[in-house]
């Protein structure tokens, strides 16, 4: 900790008094953990809506036949939660920026398990290998769902102060893209294949890139 230099504090007294005159009570920002729990609950609610429509059985049958799909799904869910928590943490000055590295293990699980699925020679039960045209639906799903999720996270960070806006925006993009990919898993009737994986990666990349470009500016209001 620094030993403060108080040599010329008086020269700033007028500004301090002016700021004091403007002071109004403020509602304290909720902790990153509390906001991450809220984010997770929201994702759970969206998952419940999709499960209500599509049912759990098709997803569980796919997972039982091809556990790599389940691992990839788990990786995506964890990435969405951890990246969300990191984004909320980066919105509070003084929190360690290095915690951004925590998204790496779940992201590696997600990417690794998805990649491993492509190496299987057999097709998972109740699925088919998607054609390029069919994968467009997956891309649309991820892009269309990621947009409101990203907007929601930017809004949740409106009272925060991210000292690294671009990194925070990348985390928002990763969290929303991973959340969309997790939710897609509930109604995804295609097996892991190079084309499908490539299209998912493209959609996730687009979401992260768009957030880094626009989200950083939106978060730079202060």
């Amino acid at each position: 900790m620094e030993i403060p230099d108080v040599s010329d504090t008086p020269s700033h007294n007028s500004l301090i008094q002016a700021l004091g005159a403007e002071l109004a009570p403020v509602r304290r920002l909720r902790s990153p953990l509390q906001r991450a729990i809220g984010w997770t609950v929201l994702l759970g609610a969206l998952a419940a809506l999709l499960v209500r429509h599509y049912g759990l059985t098709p997803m569980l049958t796919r997972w039982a036949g091809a556990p790599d799909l389940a691992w990839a799904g788990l990786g995506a869910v964890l990435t969405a939660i951890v990246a969300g928590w990191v984004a909320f943490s980066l919105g509070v000055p003084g929190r360690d920026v290095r915690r951004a590295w925590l998204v790496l293990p779940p992201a590696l699980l997600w990417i690794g398990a998805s990649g491993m699925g492509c190496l299987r020679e057999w097709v998972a039960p109740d699925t088919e290998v998607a054609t390029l045209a069919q994968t467009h639906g997956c891309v649309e799903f991820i892009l269309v769902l990621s947009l409101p999720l990203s907007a929601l996270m930017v809004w949740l960070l409106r009272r925060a102060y991210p000292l690294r806006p671009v990194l925070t925006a990348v985390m928002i993009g990763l969290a929303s893209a991973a959340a969309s990919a997790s939710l897609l898993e509930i109604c995804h009737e295609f097996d892991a294949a190079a084309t499908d994986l490539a299209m998912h990666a493209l959609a996730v990349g687009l979401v992260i890139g768009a957030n880094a470009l626009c989200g950083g500016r939106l978060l730079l209001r202060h």
Partner: protein
Amino acid sequence: MSAVLTNALVMGVDDALVSHRDAVRRVEDQPLNDNQKADLRRAAWMAAAQAGDRVAYERVLGESVGVIRSVARRQGVPVDLLDDVVQETLITIHRVRQTYDPSRSYHAWLAAIAARRGIDALRQHGRRDRRELHEPLAVENHADEHEASDAAEHDQRAAVLREAIATLPPGQREAVEHLGLRERSLAETAELTGRSTGALKVNLHRALKALRGRLHGDS
């Protein structure tokens, strides 16, 4: 059997609680050094400021000035820019005071904001330096020209300044016109405009920052 297991479980939980309490007491019993005491004091003041306590707020801001200067100096901010960094950091603290969590270190929160403002100042300074010629060189190359066109340049500068002032938001424009150009006192300006002296000071500071940015080409 189940009663034995339950007792063992209860005893285990009790032991764990006692050991946690001891650990907490041991940490609490350790004497705090001056810096830790100062950090706790500022954290309490900032918590009170979040609830609207002006006295606590002015105290914590006053004690923050030295810390901000130390952080900025460590980052290599030149001495002539230190006051700018202090002012920018104080204004940022005011805007984002809701992000402070009193259960955590005030120093860590403040130092992170000060470091950011220090980096911003260094970047702006760097950009300005690249655009501006070193003074002796500039005089040597353009001395005669400068003399010849002195009046014209003065008029041109005044026009640019007038134009920049005209683009300011009404509150800031008012502050510059009364306090800066007409050299009125704060009390006179407050009476004329119906604004508080505090608001006028903040508006003037923001206006000067905006004008500096516009005239030097920074946004």
